[in-house]
């Protein structure tokens, strides 16, 4: 298939356009998404094509409009709800966890819940403690939801399309710092399967398991490490839940060294989960202790100098890899 360059933003937008064209039950709802085209401009143009019935601006009421999405999903629609910053998911946790995530199970499997909650995570833009978290672990930890955190335009597009077609609730975490980042995206129908990791770079010395923007940093780190003769393999799970452990294990068994990098907080974070799973399944293969690179256990500070200390940078990944290799 032909491939062209799209930004992360435009790739997501294209997924929305395509899915809304394909299925009249798909609609978008959230704050400032229609007339303004979204605070991150991801939904720009949707209103013009699909009208205000299908592209719905809401008042500022996260619990309410996520809840409305839940009810709409139960009754046959496929809402794509935008919650502007992932920090605001905390206002809608009951709707996501107690309602959406459990409905299928509580109701004995007779309830579909095809709701996608799009949001963005990430520090690095000076937005301070209430606008910079990476909160996916709250959802990875609890059963009933799918969690995605794509790192490339192609993955973002392909995963979002799969999420929209899934009958289970999906939390779709974008990253605010990479909306403008460009990358190749296949033309035409491009779907990325749920629960399938991708090897972003093949290498033989050390495996990096990285998520979301950390994969971008990992790729940068890999280039520099290559110059120093260290050949890194990068596995991006893309879907954080369900986790494609097989692909991770395969890489780890090959390289025998692993660095896990994630922008969530260290304690109880994704790096701990992946480390524990690798330990359960492949500890004997390792030639060195696993390394974990994660956000410090502090709120994200405002001041840039401190902010850049708080969450993982390329240099931290390089340092961690070097320690192992």
């Amino acid at each position, binding site marked *: 298939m032909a491939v062209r360059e799209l930004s992360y933003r435009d790739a997501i937008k294209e997924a929305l356009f395509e899915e809304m064209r394909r299925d009249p039950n798909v609609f978008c709802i959230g704050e400032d998404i229609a007339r303004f085209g979204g605070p991150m401009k991801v939904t720009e143009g949707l209103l013009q094509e699909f009208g205000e019935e299908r592209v719905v601006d809401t*008042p500022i009421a996260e619990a309410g409009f996520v809840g409305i999405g839940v009810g709409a999903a139960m009754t046959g629609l496929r809402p794509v709800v935008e919650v502007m910053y992932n920090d605001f998911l905390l206002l809608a946790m009951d709707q996501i966890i107690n*309602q959406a995530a459990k409905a*299928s199970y*509580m109701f004995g499997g*007779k309830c579909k819940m095809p709701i996608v909650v799009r949001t963005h995570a990430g520090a690095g833009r000076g937005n301070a403690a209430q606008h910079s978290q990476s909160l996916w672990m709250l959802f990875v930890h609890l059963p009933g939801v799918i969690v995605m955190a794509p790192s490339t335009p192609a993955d973002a597009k392909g995963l979002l399309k799969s999420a929209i077609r899934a009958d289970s609730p999906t939390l779709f975490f974008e990253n605010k710092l990479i909306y403008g980042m460009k990358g190749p995206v296949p033309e035409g129908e491009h779907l990325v399967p*749920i629960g399938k990791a991708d090897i972003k770079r093949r290498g033989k010395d050390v495996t990096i398991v990285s998520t979301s923007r950390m994969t971008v940093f990992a790729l940068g780190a890999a280039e520099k490490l290559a110059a120093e003769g260290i050949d890194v393999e990068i596995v991006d799970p893309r879907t954080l839940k369900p986790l494609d452990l097989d692909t991770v294990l395969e890489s780890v068994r090959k390289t025998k060294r692993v660095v896990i990098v994630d922008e969530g907080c260290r304690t109880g974070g994704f790096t701990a989960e992946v480390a524990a799973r690798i330990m359960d399944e492949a500890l004997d293969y390792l030639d060195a202790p696993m390394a974990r690179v994660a956000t410090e256990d502090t709120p994200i500070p405002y001041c840039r100098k401190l902010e850049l200390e708080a969450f993982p940078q390329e240099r931290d990944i390089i340092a961690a890899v070097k320690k192992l290799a």
Partner: protein
Amino acid sequence: MSKSVNAVDGEAISDLNLTTEQLVEFYEKMYTIQRFDTETAKLYQQNLIQGAVHSYVGQEAVAVGACSALRQGDYISSTHRGHGHCLAKGLDPKRMLAEILGRRTGYCKGKGGSMHIADLDRGILGANGIVGGGIGVATGAAFTARYKKLDFVSLCFFGDGALHQGIFHECADMASLWKLPVIYLSEYNCFAEFTHSVKTFPHLNLEKRAEPYGFPGYRIDGNDVLLVYKTVKQAVDRARRGEGPALIVATCYRLEGHYIGDPLTYRTREETEEARTKEPVSAYRRRLLKNEIAGEEILWKIEAKVQKTIQEAIDFALSSPEPETDELFTDVYATPEIQTLLLKGKK
């Protein structure tokens, strides 16, 4: 309150355009709910039910009046105290009781229990263990109606306690903004758990809780099944015409405890006895007789039939199997491929 009752008594009943059969069916449904929850309470006391069971006894007129004003294709969302709503909307007592007893034959395969009975095919978007938890769901269903330009409506049952939850405010706001066909029906049953409701509201003109959103609010006698029917019908018709939501606060009294086993230390026997004089099922029975809509014989027949139905439900439920152990892992995800991945992780 009694004023409201009069409003649909005597000749006013004929204004409701209900057939005698329908009027009698109201009684059958109310009596079914009363019997169902009375028998469920007994099963609970025999230690046959785990968890908590919240009796609807005393509030039968609300569920029956309201659900009778709905069509088959309309939706309801319900609460922890939801047996009455589900029965009134047409669920089968057999499968309900099986669910309450945690059996495979239950509406949720025994995975949901009393607080989570749901049947989307019958328009029941689930009982809900979260106070106010059904408000988003019902508003969302109404969103679907408007989106698909279908003329179903969505009726949201919740307690007086749930009126305090922020989600009511948020959803009512959007429902009004978008003129969604949703009816918010709050049952003011005088209690939230073990606390008299009156202690939790700054004032009791609860119909005013519709004011901020600019849709109508009504406070009615929830012991009067016909008044409930009439009021809900009006609101439903209005909603179906695209004129938006309504709030109805139906006053009644929770005759049993918060749950079965509640020691009831917080209220006096007198208070309850006083309330019992307005008990809606027998009150409606008297009205049917007084207005010569049905005679004793017909009512006895109905009562016998209902008793039989409930007994059959008990027998069905008790003789139903429990789920298999490996069903623990099914139904977490409605998306089959995810379910497979999850189960794979299990091994």
